[in-house]
């Protein structure tokens, strides 16, 4: 293998699995260390810089970081990253003076955002401080998008949502509520310098089976949740069937329990391994005694005299090979009685309000063609982000889209090429404080993952607004923070200093290091101290060592960043250095003023 180019910011970035997996690249280990130091406000601001909504995401993020967490590979359960984010929000001191502000003097550019959800709000968050005049159009009388309409208040309290949204709106965003955009053409004619579409995926999928339209007791999940959120609906029958087993289905079943249902079944077509819902959302629903019924394929709604009696299903049997269904057959038909049915089988985006002759091209699936890097559609100056770009994802993806779209909008408005974006950067700084002292907690803490306390099962159903999760206590999070392996404190190797004494190799608790003759990656992976079978994890290969010409190889997979390699190195060839990834945002992009001759001369 060629010597690893650690100057490429992506190498060390990938070592920080959580940060690499986070679409918005939140600096997780950094904020966890700040929590450990009691710097809650700082931890909140580190979060806010990347993910904008720490309090919201600390409750309802889909947490792609946690399955990626290295701790999950060495110790079964990942660090409770998401709930530590909430700790930063819950325990922070007043940070209002640290929030971004918009300058008095505007830059003369006007940007329209359609839909007041997380994507548009992120665009506004990034552009307002640069002097833009941002207008957000929202069809409902409250902002928030799906965060308000689809996430029940027992998971995300309204005051948390309002506070973090207002931090953006209060910069002076022109928020036009009850203003549904019905014609893109008309909006474009208003002469905005850029338009951002952040309208989400607002259309719930239908299930057109016999009897579907013979009763009013069959509801589309996301529409029904929306009606509950706006208090238009406050009750449901005692027996409820939820069709579908994604995260929306979990919100529907738990909401039903709070509106009067006492027998809620989630009907899944396939076995559990094929569920779309996140494991923790399934657990939360099951704890509330929701029954999850597998292998039931919906067949018909049974309606008698306009009254819903129940549903019939085909009971399925599946042949599964290597985790894939290869064949299926119907065992029998079953009838399940119910009073209401909620359909939660997916959602899609829809753009009936975008004219097809204004230069915005749509693909074969009637979706706009959107560039994956710039988020611009085929019409210059029009950008898409969040679920409206490529279909349903999660809040954290919408935030990431918003940041990148803001970069594009800024470059577009400044007359720069939107494709010439700044590259990511990486800074490294030694954490050595003394002979055996590092500026991070390098000892491995074997504690098990802490469980977040919840309101009791009796208490929580009294009111739909009672937040079920209480958040970590001080005693809990002080343990949980120590479970973090500090993956951003990198093991940095200087080949010319190595005397090949093997001290680092011998002391490494997880056998990450090997000195051996170089070879191709596939061959090298078979010759390392511990089996390097996780191909998703990188190998570090040094320059040839001076004594023997062999190379130092590190398998990043299960390094616990304890720093013993560096402590044991007699020549300081290893050092523990904190990496700081810089993901450029709109504010980092050079503006014409930055590169003008006068500025250079000054």
């Amino acid at each position, binding site marked *: 293998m060629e010597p690893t180019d650690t100057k490429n910011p992506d190498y060390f970035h990938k070592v920080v699995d959580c940060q690499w997996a986070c679409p918005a690249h939140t600096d997780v280990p950094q904020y966890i260390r700040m929590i450990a130091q009691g710097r809650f406000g700082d931890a909140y601001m580190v979060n806010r810089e990347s993910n904008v909504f720490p309090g919201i995401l600390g409750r309802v993020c889909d947490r792609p970081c946690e399955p990626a967490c290295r701790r999950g590979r060495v110790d079964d359960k990942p660090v409770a990253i998401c709930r530590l984010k909430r700790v930063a929000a819950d325990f922070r001191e007043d940070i209002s003076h640290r929030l971004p502000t918009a300058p008095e003097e505007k830059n003369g550019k006007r940007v329209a955002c359609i839909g007041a959800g997380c994507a548009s709000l992120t665009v506004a968050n990034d552009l307002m401080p640069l002097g833009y005049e941002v207008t957000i159009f929202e069809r409902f009388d409250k902002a928030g998008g799906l965060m308000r309409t689809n996430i029940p208040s027992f998971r995300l309290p309204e005051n948390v949502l309002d506070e973090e949204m207002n931090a953006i709106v209060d910069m002076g965003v022109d928020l036009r509520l009850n203003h549904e955009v019905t014609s893109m053409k008309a909006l474009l004619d208003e002469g905005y310098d850029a338009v951002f579409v952040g309208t989400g995926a607002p259309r719930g999928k239908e299930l057109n089976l016999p009897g579907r339209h013979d009763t009013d007791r069959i509801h589309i999940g996301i529409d029904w949740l929306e009606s509950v959120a706006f208090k238009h609906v406050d009750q449901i029958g005692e027996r409820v069937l939820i069709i579908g087993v994604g995260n929306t289905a979990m919100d529907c079943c738990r909401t039903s329990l709070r509106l009067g249902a006492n027998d809620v079944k989630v009907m899944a077509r396939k076995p559990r391994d094929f569920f779309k819902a996140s494991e923790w959302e399934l657990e939360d629903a099951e704890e509330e005694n929701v029954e999850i019924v597998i292998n039931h394929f919906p067949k018909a709604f049974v309606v008698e005299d306009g009254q819903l009696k129940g549903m019939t299903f085909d009971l399925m049997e599946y042949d599964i090979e290597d985790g894939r269904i290869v064949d299926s057959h119907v065992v029998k038909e079953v009838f399940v009685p119910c009073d209401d049915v909620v359909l939660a089988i997916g959602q899609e985006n829809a753009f009936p309000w975008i004219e097809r002759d204004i230069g915005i091209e749509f693909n074969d699936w009637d979706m706009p063609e959107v560039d994956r890097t710039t988020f611009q559609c085929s019409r210059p100056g029009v950008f898409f982000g969040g679920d409206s770009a490529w279909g349903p994802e999660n809040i954290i993806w919408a935030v990431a889209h918003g940041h990148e779209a803001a970069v594009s909008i800024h470059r577009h408005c400044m007359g720069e090429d939107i494709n010439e974006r700044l590259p990511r950067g990486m800074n490294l700084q030694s954490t050595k404080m003394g002979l055996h002292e590092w500026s991070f907690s390098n000892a491995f803490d074997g504690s098990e993952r802490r469980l977040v306390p919840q309101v009791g099962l009796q208490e929580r159903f009294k009111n739909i607004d009672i937040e079920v999760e209480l958040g970590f206590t001080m005693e809990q999070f002080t343990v949980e923070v120590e479970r973090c392996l500090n993956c951003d404190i990198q093991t940095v190797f200087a080949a010319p200093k190595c005397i090949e004494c*093997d001290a680092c190799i011998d002391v490494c608790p997880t056998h990450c290091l090997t000195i051996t003759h170089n070879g191709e990656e596939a061959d090298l992976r078979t010759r390392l101290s511990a089996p390097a079978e996780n191909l998703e994890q990188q190998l570090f290969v040094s320059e040839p060592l001076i004594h023997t010409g062999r190379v130092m190889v590190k398998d990043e997979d299960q390094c616990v960043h304890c720093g013993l390699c560096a402590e044991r190195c007699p020549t300081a060839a290893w050092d523990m250095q904190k990496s700081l990834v810089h993901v450029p945002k709109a504010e980092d992009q050079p503006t014409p003023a930055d590169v003008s001759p006068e500025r250079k001369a000054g």
Partner: protein
Amino acid sequence: MSFMRKPDVVHSRAPKNDLGLTRRDYEGGMSTLCAGCGHDAITAAIIESFWSLNVEPHRVVKMSGIGCSSKTPAYFLSDAHGINSVHGRMPSIAAGANAANRDLHYIGVSGDGDSLSIGYGQLAHALRRNLNMLYIIENNGVYGLTKGQFSASADLGTKAKKGDINEQPPIDPVIACIAMGGTFVARGFSGDKAQLVPLIQAGLKHKGFALIDVLSPCVTFNDHEDSTKSYAHTRQFYHPAIHADFIAPAEPIRAAYEKGEAMEVELFDGSFIRLRKVREGYDPTDRSKALTYLNEYMAKGEIITGLMYWEKSTPDLHSIARTSETPLSKLDYGRLSPGAGKLAKIQERYR
């Protein structure tokens, strides 16, 4: 040294031996030696050897005398039996323990001071008795624990850290031990585990006294320029002469070799050592030729390593002294302590 304990975390796919143990199960306490000490690499080689031989840690006795080297038994096999003896007197303790229980694996770790100065006589007699044990000399040419004075193995002309030149000739433990009648004499280097591990494995299986002199640079007092026991110097003048592969009894690999290129020698328990000649003209089964060769090349400053001499015809201590085949701890009380009557009878024989 490190103040932190080695984390109690094991690689999720860490290989396990036939006993279901990982290498981590063969570790001891955290080393308090200097960072980069060759002794720590030898410790790792010992751990690797016992792990791959599937030896149960509690079936091992580890012994040492005094010195940096003699601290190392604390750093491997924390489940083993051990004793840290008086300076240079480890062979006597080993002889006693050996006589009492021949079923255990005996490993002694000593240094150039402990073995070649204060304990030189002890070493010679352990060798003469062909005590069944593995004896490792961690050889760095200096007294590290007392701040770096030359030891008896310091080479002529080597320079101390503060500039003194050594003017006394060294005792070479390999030449000395072959001459004194050693039955398994090897030299390794802490920086070459590929060579050292099979030597330790074979030494543990050798029936008799197996001595391995391991060059083990002292990073603090003897790793500078003009030192002949530094990492850099050792690597530069390092010449493996005979490579020994250890082949466990269960392993079927018996590749055919050209005559003279490799030879396989059977150990007492059905395992083999395969000796591969790396340098022409070396014969590890001929005592006088081996000595001639070593003397000739050592005079040129070459560091000849590998299994330097091996033979299995000399009986070990157990056969000569007819020690109990059953460990004394397993003998029933009547046999172990035959009583005053028996004692009186024995005494009668000498009146």
